[in-house]
């Protein structure tokens, strides 16, 4: 069958692409649109490395077909910073060294942005439950949680600790 023509908005820009049915949104982002920030870890929705925000909700882009993006708004890790100005989540992940190999980091950044958009004052328990769908095999999570707490304070406009 011929490819699907899909019109969508990605990181604030109107984007059109062609894809086959079995191509996931992650395949399209990485292989058709050259947005390689989103990573493929497990390809089964367990690891969260492919996390993107669709219409304000975070999803695993490996579990969504590219063709399903028709008419929807997608934010990837490439769309989190404002130009050269890092988002507080990105800045705090750097400062707190909340990463080692970095493969899971784009997913954590996007998931944390989605959390703070919904709840800028999460408890540690809420942070850990929210990020339960993002796996990191390097950090032991503690530095990630501290970075999220610091970013949350930034988003709330509190003076940095």
């Amino acid at each position: 069958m011929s490819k699907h023509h899909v019109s969508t908005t990605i990181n604030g820009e109107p984007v059109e692409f062609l894809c086959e049915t079995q191509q996931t949104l992650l395949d399209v982002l990485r292989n058709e649109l050259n947005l390689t920030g989103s990573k493929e870890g497990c390809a089964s929705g367990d690891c969260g490395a492919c996390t993107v925000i669709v219409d304000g909700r975070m999803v695993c882009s490996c579990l969504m077909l590219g063709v399903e993006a028709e008419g929807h708004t997608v934010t990837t890790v490439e769309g989190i910073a404002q130009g050269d100005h890092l988002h507080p989540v990105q800045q705090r992940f750097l400062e707190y060294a909340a990463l080692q190999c970095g493969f899971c980091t784009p997913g954590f950044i996007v998931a944390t942005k989605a959390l703070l958009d919904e709840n800028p004052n999460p408890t540690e328990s809420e942070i850990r439950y929210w990020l339960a769908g993002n796996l990191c095999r390097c950090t032991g999570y503690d530095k990630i949680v501290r970075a999220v707490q610091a970013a949350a304070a930034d988003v709330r406009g509190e003076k940095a600790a």
Partner: protein
Amino acid sequence: MSSLNYAAPKTAEEAVKLLAGASGLAKVLSGGTDLLVQLRSGRLKPDLIVDTKQIPGIIGIRQEGGGFRIGAATPGVDLEANAALKAAWPGVVEGVDLIGSEQIQARCSLAGNLCNASPAADGVPALIAARATCTIVGPAGTRTALVESIVIGPGRTSLAKGEFITEFQLPPRPAHASDAYLRFIPRTEMDIAVVGAAVNVVLDAGGVCQDARVVLGAVAPTQVIVEAAAKALIGHTLDAATLAAIDAAAQAACKPITDKRGTIAYRIKVAGVLTRRAAAIAFARARGETPATTH
């Protein structure tokens, strides 16, 4: 190059026509959180995917006649966000809320969780305990069925070719009624149930049980309705003898397997414990209390 077709029909009739008319394997897509994994692994090789999410009413929750109508493809996060639904059917909502991560919650649906037909589906036991029904459309028209009639074995449903679920219905709630769902997994989040237990009760003003339903998951090829446990609850408060009786009834109803998540003996033991604990939560909620839950 690829022979996999995709359609996103705008009406249920059109979707039925596509599903019934497909020459090869046709699969219904709601949230895709199971379907895409099966596609990717090669376990399923469909010729057609019919995305139901464009069908009017298939996403959304409506209160009607004291009960609730939940669109079949409504994502889990919408159930969790609906305060009225959560107040009336907290067990149904907490079961769905246990499916996967926040990422999965943005996509996973009741229809998908049910029709994937896993014995361990977290969204299903509380629906059955609630005596929930579903609307099924198909080539022969529209019919209504009890949720408990859908799953007939691991990965198998009673739906005929061309049929799919458009909506779930939860009945009206009398006073002093509530439900609870608990599952056991070896970690805190993101695993598949070793055992799940749902308890739905109606009490009288004095706290004596008038009606009950107890349903177990992950301890048999399909969800198990434990009639003996319901019988042991009705006419009683949750005293020590009643708790012992429902524990024994739940254990007796299990026909589990041994796998990497638990042995037969372990699953049977845990089924009794979870039934007692879920009953305690359901009774407390029905009395208007807010019991502490883990999540």
